[in-house]
């Protein structure tokens, strides 16, 4: 028997990492600073220290964010990380429906980011241990965007079902025939979208 069970967020992250507690006790200035930094991240990147000083959100507020591990500074003293955002590439990229792209600090941060920015988003991640790509499930709207941007569409149902009816532009590689030889008709450098009848 598996000993898998449902865990709470606190159990996964630990009490000291639970963001609600880390944010609730913030000094009002530090809270204002944190909100500003997150807002600026959604617009493309964090504010620089000079701007923060001009706004009266100086060293004390930043120190508090760093102390509570809500932000991290880079070697140049500028804000490099404010959870969930990172200025540096990570294995967890979040791309919004409007084409903006963000780096998330971890998989959980990536999952929360669409809610934070109030936009549907797609997450591209790599498995930390093996660095293998992770396949992403998409809907019909995203499918059309991907195909319009050059993705290859592959129906993996048997040939007779494909011949009867398929999505526009799809090619057919039945699952039972999918191997190194048949896959050669696909370009490895381009995105591939696979589909069957209903995923089963």
């Amino acid at each position, binding site marked *: 028997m598996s000993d898998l069970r449902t865990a709470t967020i606190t159990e996964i992250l630990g009490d000291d990492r639970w963001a609600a507690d880390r944010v609730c006790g913030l000094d009002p200035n530090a809270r204002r600073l944190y909100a500003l930094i997150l807002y600026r991240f959604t617009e493309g990147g964090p504010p620089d220290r000079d701007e923060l000083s001009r706004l009266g959100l100086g060293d004390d507020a930043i120190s508090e964010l760093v102390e509570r591990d809500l932000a991290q500074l880079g070697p140049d003293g500028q804000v490099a990380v404010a959870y969930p955002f990172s200025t540096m590439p990570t294995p967890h990229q979040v791309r919004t429906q409007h084409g903006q792209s963000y780096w998330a600090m971890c998989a959980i941060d990536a999952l929360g980011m669409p809610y934070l920015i109030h936009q549907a988003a797609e997450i591209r991640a790599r498995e930390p241990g093996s660095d*293998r*790509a992770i*396949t*992403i*499930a*998409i*809907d*019909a709207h*995203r*499918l059309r965007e*991907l195909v319009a941007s050059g*993705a290859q569409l*592959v*129906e*993996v*149902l048997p040939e007779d079902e*494909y*011949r*009867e*009816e*398929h*999505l*526009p*532009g*799809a090619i057919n*590689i039945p*699952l039972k025939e*999918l*191997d*190194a030889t048949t*896959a050669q008709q*696909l370009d*490895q450098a*381009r*995105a*591939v*979208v*696979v*589909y*069957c*009848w*209903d*995923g*089963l």
Partner: protein
Amino acid sequence: MSPRAACRLEALGFTEIYDYVTGKADWLARALPTEGAEPRPPRVADLLRDDVATANLPERVADVRPRVDESPYGFALVTGRGGVLLGRLRRAALEGDPAATAEQVMEPGPSTIRPDTAPAALARRLGERELTTAVVTDPDGILLGIVRLVDLDDCES
């Protein structure tokens, strides 16, 4: 099937792979275009009509009623953000308080079908329930139109 195909492609060295999990069933249920052998089997999508009166939640009954009077049907459909079907305004509601809003007097959550339904199957269902129309939405609940029993019968014959 497609999750296994995605896994196989990954093992073959592909790095950017997407799985349209809901697949062809979802595509057809959205009445999106397809390619393939002709003629394909008839579907309700071929018989869709867009002449049903619609209303927004805050609209007053007095403002909706003239549109229903001009339409071939004795009811209006209430839609929300993005055209999602939320309710139906029946004749009795339309003949009630003219100051009431659609939201106040609508019948919420009307039954719907998908556009890839076979006309013959739908004709049987409508006949059994003594209905003359069916409301068609896509899988997201977006109103696509109305289909009439008389058109289904014509299609069959």
